[in-house]
């Protein structure tokens, strides 16, 4: 030992050897840290961030409800438009937010892949969890307001089917997001196009305008869109006297989600190490 320095530089609580953590423990710790990190940048990256995270979607939904509800309450008797919109737009926005946020998950967390515990896949998981939380809070807040102040009835008729539908939604959006993230890695220029794609998707999924009025054969074409199925399935569980669209099922989007997840994970497997290097 040299006597050159008397300063002992040592971390706090040096233990002989900490117990080894299992892979699952490491993943849990990483997800927890990443989720907190995502909330931090969500809340602090702009002024009143915490407020806008909730206010932005709420304002958008409220605006749509007021604007369109005025017209549609007359044209769709028996179905309150505000409720019809709410149970369609919140899941849709959740899926859109998951997909779009996953697209940017790797670039926004690039610096954190410096720690070998943190893999791109963990950022996908964390961002999905964050978006599910935000969407749930938005849904609960709006639903609470509508039930207590506007006297709407928002029951849940089939909770298990509802959870199943939500799971399919999350898996589908997750797969789409992972796939888009990898695609954008190869073709960064298409990012704005992908973002724009969600606007027509909003319309052809029957979120704002009812799809029922679309004539054949175009109606059958629209049925290729798994979002349409998911949104309509979700509506059935929260609305009394709601007649499901013909030809809509949970089976089709569930198959899409599974195939999508398979493709996304496969693509991720082959490209995961390229994602890490900036």
């Amino acid at each position, binding site marked *: *030992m*040299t006597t*050159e*320095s008397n*300063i*002992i*530089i*040592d*971390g*706090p*609580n*040096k*233990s002989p*050897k*900490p117990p080894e*953590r299992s892979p699952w*423990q*490491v993943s849990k*710790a*990483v997800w*927890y*840290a990443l989720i*907190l*990190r995502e909330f*931090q*940048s969500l809340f602090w*990256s702009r002024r009143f961030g915490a407020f806008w995270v909730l206010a932005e979607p709420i304002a958008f939904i409220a605006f749509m409800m007021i604007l369109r509800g005025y017209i549609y309450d007359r044209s769709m008797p028996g179905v309150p438009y505000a409720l019809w919109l709410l149970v369609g737009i919140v899941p849709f926005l959740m899926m859109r937010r998951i997909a779009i946020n996953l697209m940017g998950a790797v670039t*926004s*967390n690039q*610096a*954190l*892949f*410096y*720690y*070998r*515990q*943190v893999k791109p896949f963990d950022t996908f998981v964390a961002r999905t969890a964050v978006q599910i939380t935000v969407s749930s809070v938005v849904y609960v807040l709006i639903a609470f307001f509508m039930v207590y102040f506007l006297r709407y009835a928002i029951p849940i008729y089939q909770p298990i089917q509802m959870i199943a539908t939500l799971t399919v939604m999350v898996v589908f959006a997750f797969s789409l997001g992972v796939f888009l993230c990898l695609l954008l890695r190869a073709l960064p220029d298409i990012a704005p196009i992908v973002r724009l794609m969600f606007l027509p998707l909003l319309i052809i999924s029957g979120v704002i305008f009812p799809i029922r009025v679309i004539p054949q054969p175009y109606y059958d074409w629209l049925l290729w869109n798994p979002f349409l199925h998911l949104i309509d399935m979700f509506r059935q569980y929260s609305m009394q006297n709601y007649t499901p669209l013909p030809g809509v099922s949970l089976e089709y989007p569930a198959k899409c989600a599974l195939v999508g997840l398979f493709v996304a994970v496969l693509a991720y497997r082959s490209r995961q*190490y*390229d994602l*890490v*290097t900036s």
Partner: protein
Amino acid sequence: MIVVENLHKRYRTHAGMGKWVLKGLTFTIPANANVGIIGGNGAGKSTLLRILGGVDQPSKGRVERNCRMSWPMGYGGGLQGSLTGRQNARFVCRIYGHEEDIKDRVAFIEDFAEIGPAFDEPVRSYSSGMRSRLNFGMSLAFDFDVYISDEVTAAGDAKMKQKAADAFKSLAQRSGLLMAAHSESTLKRFCQSGLFLEHGQVHWFDDIDDALKAYKESIGLKK
């Protein structure tokens, strides 16, 4: 102990696969060895350290490490620009599973980094010296068997260099050190042996002086 077998690395670029940065390295680093990594700019020092630290994966070959390795500390990576120094420190404590004593460790990092109120400012506003102070402090807050330094002292001021020197000295007693640096005196001071990287190949020298000599000869410098 770190065992490297037939390690190859190349990166994918937008024009297809790039050229090989590392071409078939095979070497073993004994436990607790202090090794200097020497090579010109672009020789692959950082790439090698990233692979040893587990940040990058080898394109071919195998790396076996039976020890806890730090991340490559330096002024480059590991800090998220949008988060503050404190948030970054807390993040790292969490991923290393130190949720219970997070306060002590963050306090240690803050104390070591000595960047004052900037600790609560976003990291993107830091100078490279401040970044390396923070990064260095963060890795010292944990027990690693091997610390990896990628020019961590290069951007530091005199005080930081002194602190780093003290830290390296005390670390040398119980841990290994892999260090890439361009400063000859730094390397000589902290490292016993050397790895000299050239044209994607590596040469091991038991004595750091020989490694430095070989490097100088390769670039046509007289001793």
